């Protein structure tokens, strides 16, 4: 065993000073960043809105004709549910939007794969899609009516066309933007072209695909709203249209709330799916 350290390194017991409490620490610097978020803080905005709506309706400041009170809206919603009208129309609308969404997403993914993974594919398709993108789908409705009539086919087609664009754009960009470092890695590993696409390109593009899906979901509801305003005999938009002729503002508000809820729910569904599938991602949000 070594001899214990002695001499200059040892602090003699007598030399140790008595312990005194440390002086008051100087105040910490004022915090400039945002600070810790409150758990339910996001409810403040909608809560205030509800509060003002209620106060305005109860005091008579808001004309009940123009905007019914929150409790009248809830009562109307209860009536519509009791009559079954809300559920039937909601189911029809959701089905329409769902079909259009699936169709548009499939087409968008397929075309984006063709144009993203090959230069020639890109030359063929990308220019066409950029041209189509400049024309709002809703402006194409008169043509679509001529070609597809006014039945369900036309409505689903318009929704699919609106959904196609964001899915294509985000997927195409994601496929083309694969990190060059991974491409080099794949080359040094001697991966076949198919293995490269399967292991590097497709998984690397998935975050972009999900971003496209979130835009697509929003577009689907927007297109649904417009398409149901014209020539529909079923759906939430039809319910709103009828309410216009009967001056039933409360039904209109219920319909709008239904649309908003549908949008929120479907967006959350996409985000949940994204978190599950992209479980490998550690991002700022976690």
């Amino acid at each position, binding site marked *: 065993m070594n001899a214990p350290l002695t001499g200059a390194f040892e602090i003699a017991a007598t030399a140790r000073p008595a312990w005194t409490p440390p002086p008051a620490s100087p105040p910490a610097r004022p915090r400039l960043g945002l600070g810790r978020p409150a758990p339910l803080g996001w409810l403040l905005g909608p809560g205030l809105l509800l509060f003002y709506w209620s106060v305005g309706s109860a005091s008579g400041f808001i004309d009940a004709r123009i905007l019914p009170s929150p409790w009248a809206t809830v009562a109307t919603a209860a009536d519509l549910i009791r009559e079954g009208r809300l559920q039937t129309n909601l189911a029809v609308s959701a089905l329409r939007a769902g079909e259009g969404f699936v169709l548009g997403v499939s087409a968008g993914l397929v075309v984006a794969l063709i144009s993203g993974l090959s230069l020639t594919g890109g030359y063929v398709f990308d220019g066409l899609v950029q041209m189509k993108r400049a024309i709002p789908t809703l402006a194409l409705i008169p043509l679509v009516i001529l070609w597809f009539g006014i039945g369900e086919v036309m409505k689903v087609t318009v929704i699919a066309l609106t959904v196609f664009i964001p899915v294509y754009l985000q997927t195409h960009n994601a496929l083309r933007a694969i990190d060059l*470092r*991974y491409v080099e890695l794949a080359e*040094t590993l001697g991966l076949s072209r198919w*293995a490269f696409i399967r*292991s*590097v390109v497709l*998984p*690397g593009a998935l975050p972009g695909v999900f971003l496209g899906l979130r835009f697509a979901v929003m577009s689907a509801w927007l297109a649904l709203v417009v398409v149901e305003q014209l020539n529909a005999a079923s759906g939430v938009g039809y319910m709103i249209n009828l309410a216009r002729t009967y001056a039933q503002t409360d039904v209109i508000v219920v319909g709008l709330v239904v649309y908003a809820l549908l949008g929120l729910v479907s967006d959350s569904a996409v985000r949940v799916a994204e978190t599950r599938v*992209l479980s*490998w991602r550690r991002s700022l949000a976690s």
Partner: protein
Amino acid sequence: MSAVRVRGLTRRFTLRGVLNGVDLDIAPGEFVALVGASGSGKSTLLRALAGIDHEAQGEGEIAVPARLSVVFQDARLLPWKRVLANATLGLTGADVRTRGLAALAEVGLAGREDAWPHELSGGEQQRVALARSLTREPELLLADEPFGALDALTRLRMHALLKRLSETHRPAVLLVTHDVDEAIELADRVVLLEAGRIAADIPIDHAAPDRAARFLALRASLLALLGVEDPLSDEPKIPGPTRSMGR
């Protein structure tokens, strides 16, 4: 018969010549360190050997073995694959999983095969990259400053690991590094690249009895060639307060 044979290699990027006639031989199983100042062309030479310099123009003759692996300065693990899948990327065959697990155990990551890359530290990620490079039994291992992004303590541990791996598997190794100490410690031969040409080619005898002194001398001369002051040297340098560490 050399594993690597390079003759008259030139590379340039839009008028700027980076490699101006490089001749290099590496014997099978030989560990060569390539040192040079920044911009001397070390990485360009390595990438040319790896076959991934599609953008560069130039001429020259390159012969490299078919089975080669590259280790980059960043680990380049695919974030969407777990550690084992990364280590066995591109491998085919029935025993892929066994080989992967064995390689991970060799680099000291046994038990971590189901982790995601982002859960590993920088050093651990680079170890997975090393495991990946070894699972395919390469005849040539190209390493482009593989430990440059790691802290000094981890770097020392990785030196020991690389030394052990190269002694076990015996590939030919070309290690590009800016760290002279690392080059002397690991390599059988140190090659100095300057202005696009090989300026020095110095073999290292790790078995010589007076290797400590010889290493110091080699270190001093390499640093001098690179134009860097040697803080360990006793000799007077530029006028100014002289400081030297005690022996």
